[in-house]
């Protein structure tokens, strides 16, 4: 029983990490109908920038200059500014020129963006594996281990709390503020949004900035767990099944989808694994996504395609 509980908690917490990545996708998809292939690389780029600033890495030279090392709070603020600048550049150089094009064309553009960002990350900060030390707690939670004999990673608990905070803030932003409403309006109907005087350019910069910041959070959490290196950008692939499960347009969907996949993976690995030779964890999520695509393509919480008869 204890083992089951432990697996479930580990699954839930891993799921939160998936959700963090999926969130960034949902934001951009909601506001511009674009599936942003570069989301994973954005997380990597954000994490690289943060680490670079923390360690005082000299850009393009890749040597560490301890005098340039910044305190954590300042590094985070500067990284956020970098992500906003990135959003502005993306709007200027890409989105602006592709207004009203097919979604697939925008998708291809983000594919290109992914490669550019990946290269830029390597070029500026170097390609070696970096350790992110933000002073986040490591190891197991002693209290749970001593009293209940449960092994729960502290970093994952921090990630869970962060995710809850992030989602609360985003939900309030989307539903209670003028800009948030405008974002949802743009998601529904570009043309109509333009006609009531919403500036698409502003909205796009805002939404890419927000998702850049979400990418930073995801990058930090994953980076603290497994080091910062190229493979970090592949977490985007893990977010895909989460999105199919939860729905591309739903923030709660991204969270719950992440949790289901996290837990499902662990259970499948532990209880079904031994019978078919293990390694279920690697493909379980995609299998689940496939089933969803067959029977409920909008996902659990995705917006239904409204068709009036």
């Amino acid at each position, binding site marked *: 029983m204890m083992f089951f509980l432990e697996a479930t908690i580990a699954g839930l917490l891993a799921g939160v990490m998936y959700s963090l990545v999926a969130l960034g996708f949902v934001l951009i998809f909601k506001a511009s109908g674009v599936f942003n292939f570069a989301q994973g690389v954005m997380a990597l780029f954000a994490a690289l920038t943060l680490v670079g600033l923390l360690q005082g890495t000299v850009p393009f030279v890749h040597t560490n200059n301890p005098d340039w090392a910044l305190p954590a709070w300042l590094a985070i603020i500067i990284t956020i500014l970098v992500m906003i600048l990135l959003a502005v550049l993306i709007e200027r150089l890409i989105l602006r020129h592709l*207004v*009203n094009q097919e979604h697939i064309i925008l998708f291809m553009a983000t594919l290109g963006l992914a490669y550019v960002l990946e290269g830029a990350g390597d070029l500026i900060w170097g390609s070696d594996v970096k350790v992110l030390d933000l002073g986040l707690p490591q190891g197991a939670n002693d209290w749970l281990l001593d009293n209940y004999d449960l092994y729960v990673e502290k970093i994952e608990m921090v990630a869970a709390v962060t995710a809850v905070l992030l989602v609360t803030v985003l939900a309030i932003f989307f539903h209670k503020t*003028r800009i948030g*409403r*405008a974002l*949802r*309006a743009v*998601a*529904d*109907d*570009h*043309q*109509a*949004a*333009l*006609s*009531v*005087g*919403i*500036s698409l350019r502003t909205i796009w910069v805002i939404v890419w900035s927000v998702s850049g910041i979400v990418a930073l959070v995801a990058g930090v959490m994953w980076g603290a767990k497994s080091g910062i290196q190229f493979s970090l950008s592949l977490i985007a692939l893990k977010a895909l099944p989460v999105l199919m499960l939860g729905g591309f347009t739903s923030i709660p969907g991204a969270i719950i989808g992440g949790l289901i996949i996290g837990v499902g993976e662990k259970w499948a690995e532990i209880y079904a694994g031994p019978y078919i030779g293990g390694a279920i964890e690697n493909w379980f999520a995609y299998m689940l996504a496939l089933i969803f695509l067959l029977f409920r393509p909008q996902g659990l919480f995705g*917006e239904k395609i*409204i068709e*009036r008869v």
Partner: protein
Amino acid sequence: MDQSVEKTETSEVAAETPPPILSVNNIEVIYNHVILVLKGVSLDVPKGGIVALLGANGAGKTTTLKAISNLLNAERGEVTKGSINFEGAEVHALSPNDLVKRGCIQVMEGRHCFEHLTVEENLLTGAYTRGSDRKGVRSDIEMVYGYFPRLKERRTSLAGYISGGEQQMCAIGRALMSRPKMMLLDEPSMGLAPQLVEEIFEITKRLNEEQGVSVLLAEQNVNMALRYAQFGYILENGRVVLDGEAATLRENEDVKEFYLGGSGGNRKSFRDVKHYKRRKRWLA
């Protein structure tokens, strides 16, 4: 309208002919750099007036409205000649966003409500350009509900699920929330029952009188439009082929023939009509 009329702006004369709130001068619109859609359209909307822009499918009504509200760019269209003046200032290079701020807003054909937002959220979105004027926005929402009591009943419904008539009301109400001086209405009658069409036109008329909103109305429903407008322009193939007071247009034989259906006693067979049409083009 007659371009040769001198625009005397002295205050004494102005009482007689106030300067138009919107004046479009000989604009040409090209889509995709090759398709010429408007071939020199000119029109004036007097301050506080309702002007109808009439014509069949593909005549260029929507394009004219979009050229004014500057929604063309998003569709790869471009105004290549002519000028558009709103309240005396050239607006053809302004973004839709700036234009809405100045008080000129379009209600698009086919309603285009934000389907996944509630009716009330739709209205709030209309006030986007007004910034964070909460009190004013609140009282304007009540004003809109005053004109469209049905919207108040459906305030928490998603706009995608309300009826077509309600969506049209929602779209007009949303535009009202920007406190417009001028509204460009694109086919508000589309796909609605005659009774509803009448209701919408009736409300538009009241908005025009009570809120002082000038209206440029693009319509295929010529009969209805000419009952509410004071002045009308008829577009054909991207050109204004006829214009005049609404009453005059209603009596015009050609308008009756082509748009109001039948010109009295002797109905022509379809073949004759086509023939007649081909022989006698508009020559304005």
